């Protein structure tokens, strides 16, 4: 059973969002890293790039698959997790912690309300099985 922490927001693309003030931290869910397998490379944007909600901000690769990364909410990238360049395996070992990917300045906090709660995301995972 995939780990789905309570305090986060989720998208149907299997990204999570942690909101702190007007900053959001984004990564992929435990379910996503698990179905992808050993992550070997993460391609991330540059600080300062701006994306709309659902915009492709990068990609994550396993040995034999590539998944695009979609930003759950729109905003400007303020920080990227540079350590993933050397240790992409953090996405597997700690998807909600050291495996975070980008921080963004939220363009519209109202967009957060459109995301799934932990309970809703768990239901969504069940419905996908």
């Amino acid at each position, binding site marked *: 059973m995939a780990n789905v922490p309570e305090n986060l927001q989720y998208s149907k693309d299997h990204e999570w969002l942690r909101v702190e003030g007007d900053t959001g931290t984004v990564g992929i869910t435990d379910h996503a890293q698990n179905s992808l*397998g*050993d992550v*070997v*490379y993460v391609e991330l944007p540059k600080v300062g790039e701006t994306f709309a909600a659902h915009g492709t901000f990068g990609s994550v*690769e*396993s*040995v*034999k698959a590539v998944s695009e990364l979609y930003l759950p909410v729109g905003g400007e990238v303020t920080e990227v997790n540079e350590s993933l360049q050397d240790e*992409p*395996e953090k996405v597997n070992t700690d998807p909600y912690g050291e495996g975070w990917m980008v921080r963004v300045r939220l363009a519209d906090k109202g967009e957060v309300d459109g995301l799934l709660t932990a309970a809703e995301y768990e239901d969504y995972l069940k419905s996908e099985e």
Partner: protein
Amino acid sequence: MNQPKASPHITQNEALVFERSQPGRRGYMLPALDVEETPIDELLPAEFRRADDLEGVPELSEPDVVRHFTRISTWNYNIDLGLYPLGSCTMKYNSRLNERVARIAGFANLHPLASEEDAQGALEVMYELQEHLAEITGLPGVSLQPAAGAHGEMTGVMMIRAFLDKRDGERSAGRRVMLIPDSAHGTNPASAHLSGFTVKTIRSTSEGLTDLEHLRELCASGDVAGLMLTNPNTCGIFERNIQEICRIVHDAGGLVYMDGANMNALVGVARPGDMGVDVIHLNLHKTFSTPHGGGGPGSGPCCCTSELEPFLPVPRVVARGGEGGERSFALDSERPDSIGRVKAFYGNFGMHLRALAYILTHGRAGLREATEAAVLNARFIAVGLADTFDQPFTSPPMHEVLFTDRRQSRKGAHTLDIAKRLIDYGFHPMTIYFPLIVQGAMLIEPTESVGRAELQQFVDAMKEIAREAVENPDLVLGAPHTTRIGRLDEAAAARKPVLRWRPEEKAATA
């Protein structure tokens, strides 16, 4: 480097050529320079010359070289050793006679820019091969220039683009969609993209066939340039609606491209041209037995209808004269509608020689006989394994048969494990996880080059592995057990790629 040994046997631990190198060893001897030597500074100022004395390039004697490559060669599986049942790869016997033909001095030593009158034999080889491929496919226009299957695809799709641009003028810009089934080989969408097309995916039906309703729906939008279809498809099933498929695409103003990877099921039995296909590429390194060489060279001729013929790459190989007079052969570049060149010179001529030798050795009867034998062998495996492995589709297979790991995976043994365990039984694994639409796919193509007893051994091995998967899954999960190295950590290799050797002291700091 201090590597753990694969076994104490020295042939199992052959180092890299760089690690084997000893200063002062040499494996060659050239004739002494027979002209007056010009001081090197007069020939070429020092700023244009290498200053590194090729440091790091190996220094080995001839026996060192021969032992090195002989030892590492023994770590390879190969067709001559046994069944190589990679689906959609057609690993058939590579005739030694064809190898001999390709090495005849009059071909091997012929420079590609020799004048046409000095290269008549080579041009005749190409012309005759073109004629036979046209007959085999039922498509009269042929270019031998593409160097591999994907290269032939790119060529064919570019021809479609050029045809539409000429036919529709500016309106052609409204036709930029290439339809590709979800079961297709990855080269198809990549080739379509190179020609400026957007890819739309067609669903397959539960029978493993192209979904005609979905095809009609996509064609109705009016922006379809064409369809890329493999037939028999990558599920090993003949698209029995092929004529209707071609009609739908043609009625929508598009053209049909056929990926000829699976022509080994059709040669001498049915022709793509008769089915409504407009352009096809063949893989001489599959159907016509030119050796795979551990990943090439290939050769991917394009065959097309007379409507598409003006768009073939240049130069074309043509015949002149004949009809009582002497026939001669020439290169013709005066084709204003051609897509241009896709390769320097004329294609992988050495492969053309081997393919022509293959066709002439088989003759008209032998070509069909090979097709029958190939399909029969696949059917034999299909029947032999029907009770043991899950078959996603019920249609009878052509030259390759598709199974899945559905029954075995419940106990933890997946397709990858089954494939690796097959190695312990002395067989090369089948194509795995392809086509992508079938979970845990195992695509088996025995070809005609294997006898009944060996087919039965393969069937028995697969059944035995299925039994092991239930009774002793660890045996399967840990396979292979008999090779000099075990499963390699591909994730670690991709995270910190080491793509070349470096001297140890430098490697430490790099």
